[in-house]
């Protein structure tokens, strides 16, 4: 059996993953609770076909770009500074893992406590996790890079000079590619921040969806796709400083100012201090009495649901990607079908998962099903797109078969390691999103975070967010181990590069 597998273990891993997802199905809540999902879907699609562009508020578009540009700039700048000590310092690596394992929305919910609904909250909510992600990826880029220029430096050259003159010139292009990709993610994050109250396009989009103003929602979505689709036109070397300064000027004026100083003090010395400690009772017994119900009634069931959702979504993503990638590959879709396939996958990938999940929940009601659909669509779009590019890069024999034979006996076997690498890489990201979908009503970890915040129990919220971060880090570590075992850890998994060979981290 193993003769057909290029590296032993692909089949085993795939089987185990599929089996785990199957085992999850009976315990997953997959009900459709709405009665007319199709009618609502038709109305939504009608809105996309007949968009109401005059209803789009121009400033919300500007703010969406401004938060994204500044958030990514600050995040990437900090990430670059952290990337230099990243490989050497365990502390830096841990700090970055902590930063990126907390979702932008969780960051925003915490930052709002101190900075209110303000530009600072919006920019920092993007900048903090992105600093952690950028530090990791920049450091990987640095490690992969050519060292020949470094070897000819005179002895005694300082670390900063060495980096600036011997390494940056070689690395800058790839940094720029990755940062541009991060900006695309930043735009999605910025939009989604509107769903919790920041004045980006998500704010009006949420209202429009909620109240069924689908023509307005359609217009907003089309504007957003246009922004993402044209990013290579407006983000150029020369336009970056303009964008950053422009974004800083265009930030929304905050209506009312939070008392940052006192709020910060209250947040750290009161709000997030575990309730028994706050009451002056710091005995282990009382702390355990406080923590135990959080663990047994929230963390454990929430984690179980999060893992179940992520597992099913991962396997559906895999199946989706296998079906979708031929649409964007020359040999399968042909010169006519391929551009259509690409547009489809770019649209799917540009749609933020959170928004997609919100929408599916409106259509299907609060169960795991809409969350699975949203996660799988988005991620299958991304992986399908990348696989398509890899499929085009494969050198085929002149007498290669065509159609299903080519797919099953040549393309897929040759791409399978790459395919697993993409999937395992996205596992952590799917998990992070699964947790956050709780805010929308699926009973994953975010569900309990939302409850804790509604009850103003920030101490509990912080414990739950930390637990979510730990689960994310654990899955990331497990995924890395698997990739090493399968010897696919050196395959490209990022999607930032213009070529498949130089691909970044999703998000």
């Amino acid at each position, binding site marked *: 059996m193993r003769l057909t597998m290029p590296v032993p273990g692909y089949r085993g891993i795939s089987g185990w993953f599929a089996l785990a997802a199957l085992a999850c199905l009976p315990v997953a809540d997959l009900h459709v609770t709405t009665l007319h999902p199709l009618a609502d879907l038709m109305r939504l699609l009608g809105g996309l076909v007949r968009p109401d562009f005059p209803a789009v508020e121009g400033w919300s578009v500007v703010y969406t770009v401004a938060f994204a540009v500044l958030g990514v700039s600050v995040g990437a700048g900090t990430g670059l500074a952290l990337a230099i000590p990243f490989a050497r310092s365990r502390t830096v690596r841990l700090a970055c893992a902590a930063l990126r394992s907390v979702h932008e929305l969780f960051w925003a919910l915490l930052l709002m406590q101190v900075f209110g609904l303000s530009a600072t909250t919006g920019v920092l909510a993007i900048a903090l996790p992105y600093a952690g992600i950028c530090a990791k990826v920049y450091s990987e880029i640095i490690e992969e890079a050519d060292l020949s220029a470094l070897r000819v430096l005179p002895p005694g050259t300082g670390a900063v000079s060495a980096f600036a003159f011997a390494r940056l010139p070689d690395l800058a292009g790839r940094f720029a590619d990755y940062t541009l990709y991060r900006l695309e993610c930043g735009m999605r994050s910025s939009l989604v921040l509107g769903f919790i109250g920041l004045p980006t396009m998500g704010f009006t989009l949420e209202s429009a969806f909620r109240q069924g103003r689908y023509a307005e929602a359609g217009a907003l979505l089309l504007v957003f796709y246009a922004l993402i689709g044209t990013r290579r036109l407006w983000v150029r070397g020369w336009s970056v400083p303009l964008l950053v300064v422009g974004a800083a000027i265009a930030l929304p004026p905050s209506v009312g100012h939070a008392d940052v100083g006192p709020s910060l003090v*209250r947040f750290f010395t009161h709000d997030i201090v575990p309730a028994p400690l706050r009451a002056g009772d710091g005995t282990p017994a009382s702390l355990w009495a406080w923590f135990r119900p959080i663990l047994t009634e929230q963390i454990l069931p929430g984690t179980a649901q999060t893992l179940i959702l992520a597992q099913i979504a991962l396997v559906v993503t895999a199946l989706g990607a296998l079906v979708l990638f031929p649409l964007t590959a020359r040999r399968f879709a042909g010169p006519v079908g391929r551009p259509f396939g690409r547009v489809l996958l770019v649209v799917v990938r540009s749609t933020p998962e959170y928004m997609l999940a919100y929408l599916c929940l409106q259509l299907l009601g609060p169960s795991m099903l809409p969350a699975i659909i949203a996660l799988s669509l988005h991620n299958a779009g991304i992986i399908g797109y990348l696989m398509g590019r890899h499929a085009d890069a494969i050198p085929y024999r002149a007498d290669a078969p065509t159609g299903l034979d080519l797919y099953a006996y040549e393309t897929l076997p040759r791409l399978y390691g790459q395919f697993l690498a993409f999937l395992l890489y996205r596992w952590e990201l799917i998990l992070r999103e699964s947790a956050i979908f709780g805010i929308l009503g699926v009973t994953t970890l975010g569900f309990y975070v939302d409850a804790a915040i509604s009850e103003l129990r920030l101490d509990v919220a912080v414990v739950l967010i930390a637990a979510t971060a730990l689960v994310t880090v654990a899955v990331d570590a497990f995924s890395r181990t698997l990739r090493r075992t399968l010897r696919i850890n050196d395959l490209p998994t990022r999607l930032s590069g213009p070529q498949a060979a130089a691909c970044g981290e999703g998000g």
Partner: protein
Amino acid sequence: MIGIGRIARLACGLLAAGLSLAAPAQAQEKPALVFTGIPDQDESRLVERFGKVAQYLEGKLGVPVRYVPVKSYPAAVTAFTNGQVQLAWFGGFTGVQARKAVPGSQAIAQGAEDAAFRFYLIANAATGLTRSTELPKAIAGKTFTFGARASTSGRLMPEYTLRQNFPGQSPDQIFSRVGFSGDHSRTIQLVQSGAFEVGAVDYSVWDLDSKAGKIDPKAVSVIWESAPFPDYQWTVRGDVEKTYGAGFTDKLRAALVGITDPTILEPFGRSKFIPVSNAAYEPLIEVGKATGLLD
């Protein structure tokens, strides 16, 4: 070299961005009085009512008044707690939460209807449930939606009432599925569409949506009306006196109570506003503790 240039320019941009972020908010001559309200129903109605209130208060108080929309109940409480807003239209429970978090803050005015507010249990016609004076026990086993998690008439009081009527059972145990719709208009839509069979809804929003023709009486109807409890109120931070001068709280209360314009009151679903104090909401503190929503 191009790369270095690009990075250098990025760095300049970052510096500029950092400076602009760090620049402290310029203090104005008269800082605007900023207020918010819990997003308990359709946003268009909220924008209408609070826009009018802002305009009215500005004229009465002689200070700029601004409304900040928020997306959730806790976001309204947070904005009040961290000082972004000085005044808020809270529900009974969010008001209790906010005043607990900000010592010195006061409930100053409530709607005349809020002293004896009610919630309705509503049911989809397919359930066959009809209106009764006793809480219908037949709702057990159905699917059920609350409003927002921190809603008084959509969560706190319904949960308390349910726990009393089904002793020893939590809502999760009484119903086959429990959801949180987020706001009252949405609760009505969800029960009307059959997504949930039964729901708990604010009676004033039911009446407003009913008048607006948004409710199909053949699809959804009221099956039970709750006992009265105190609900919505305007709550103001204690530090407004420092900012706007002594006596500002009374001035604000008088302005709110003095609203007679039906175009302001109607979108609230209130006949007028009346003075109120923190003490009026003490029963809710007990209810909050009993349901475990408050420490």
